């Protein structure tokens, strides 16, 4: 493996970590209502 492939894979892994953090945040119990509110709000407007 050369430097380019290590950087490529490193960025990929970094993005995976960010993704895991997003999943944890989205599914945290504290944010349940906040996470679903938009789907009701979008129906009010018409």
């Amino acid at each position: 493996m050369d430097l380019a492939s290590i950087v490529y894979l490193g960025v990929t892994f970094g993005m995976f970590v960010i993704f895991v953090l997003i999943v944890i945040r989205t599914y945290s119990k504290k944010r349940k209502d906040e996470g679903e509110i938009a789907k009701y709000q979008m129906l009010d407007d018409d």
Partner: protein
Amino acid sequence: MENQTYNYAIVRSFVTWSIIWGLVAVLVGVIVSFQMVDPDLNFPPYLTFGRLRPIHTNAGIYGWGIGMIFATFLYMVQRLCKVPLWSDKLAKFQLWFFNATIIASAVTLLLGYTTSKEYHEMEWPIDVMVVILWVVFAINIIMTILKRKDEQMYISLWYMMAAIIAVAILYIVNAAAVPVSLFKSYSAYAGTNDANVEWWFGHNAVAMVLTAPFLAMFYYFLPKSTGVPIYSHRMSIIAFWSLIFMYLWTGAHHLLWTPVPDWIQTLAMGFSIMLIAPSWGSVFNGYLSMNGQWHQMRENYLVKFLILGITFYGLQTLQGPMQAIRTFSAFIHYTDWVPAHIHLGTMGWVSMICFASIYYLVPRIYGRELYSIPLANLHFWLILVGQLTWSISLWIAGVLQAGMWNAMNSDGSLTYTFMETMVEMYPYWWARAFGGMIYLAGLIVFIYNLYKTAKKGGAIAAQATVVEGRA
């Protein structure tokens, strides 16, 4: 409820122009289908398969697809943010500049000017026009989002923003070139790097032009049509982020078995398979949103278009990852299997969602109900049958072609000559042309229905303004 004026006139104009470009795309698609079965239908130098094919693909993706993206984004952003557009003038400029860009593209392609990069054929002056067009559009949408009334953004807004930002980056990076004259430039990249950048652009164009915006429309128009919210907003957010992360790495699945480094190909293959998860996350979200509402498939023609559309998307995103596996790719690459994949997506997923969105918008932009629901149902069946005829015949053709190319005699020589494999394709190409005619008939029914809707009753105000709550 507070009074609010929305700019629907611009939405109506974009809908009209995208339908015009959609008709051009399908007409030229039918013509090139016939040129493949009857080469005498080529009229050099302008009306040959080689020049008409990129006109078909560009009119389809950029005229019809992007035209509808402009129309629906300009509509959805106002409704979801509950504020009018940031700038009506900018939107009007965007409309005329969009048409100028499409016309310039069609004329230069007919004259034979091309970069020869697929989906990025237009020469550098048109690239400059595309960039101006996109920046104008991006500013208007982003500024409107910044003015929004509700803090939480609905999933459609996420997809819209992703598409706007990603397309800008993809297009500019792939457009990097050295102009040598007004109509000739050379790519800034060389060799396999050029191919890698081109397909990084190419497949992300699939993601950010032919997927993300249509998911934004699906997530908006499905609940609006059924009257019930989507199953899970949080699930849609996770599907969104995983789609964004995964698509970026998949471009090299177009370059399997090429001199591009092996590990890039393997990464592309791995991520393509993983893409099933976020894609089907949206498919399941759509299906689960129909819990208790399946009767609407019979009663509400809009729902039929949307659910069939997401089903095509589901099939497309199963077929795609399969094609990205090296061994499978070795079999079907270069065969007619691939256009069958593409048209499942473009004529099925993308166009079904466009039709549903237009039907939903009709009472809002014309101020009156659709002229005929039976005609809308006829339209549905014609495009469904036309599309399936197109794809099924070419899937069979692709497998047959691959089987013949790979067939070997016991002494290791090839069983069939290339010409023999071509001759075998004729019945399937005829079937494709026939399927295309059925699809075209469906499109004409659709246009007639809209024409009658627009003509029925009184004249329409130049600037349709609507009071919130009565749209």
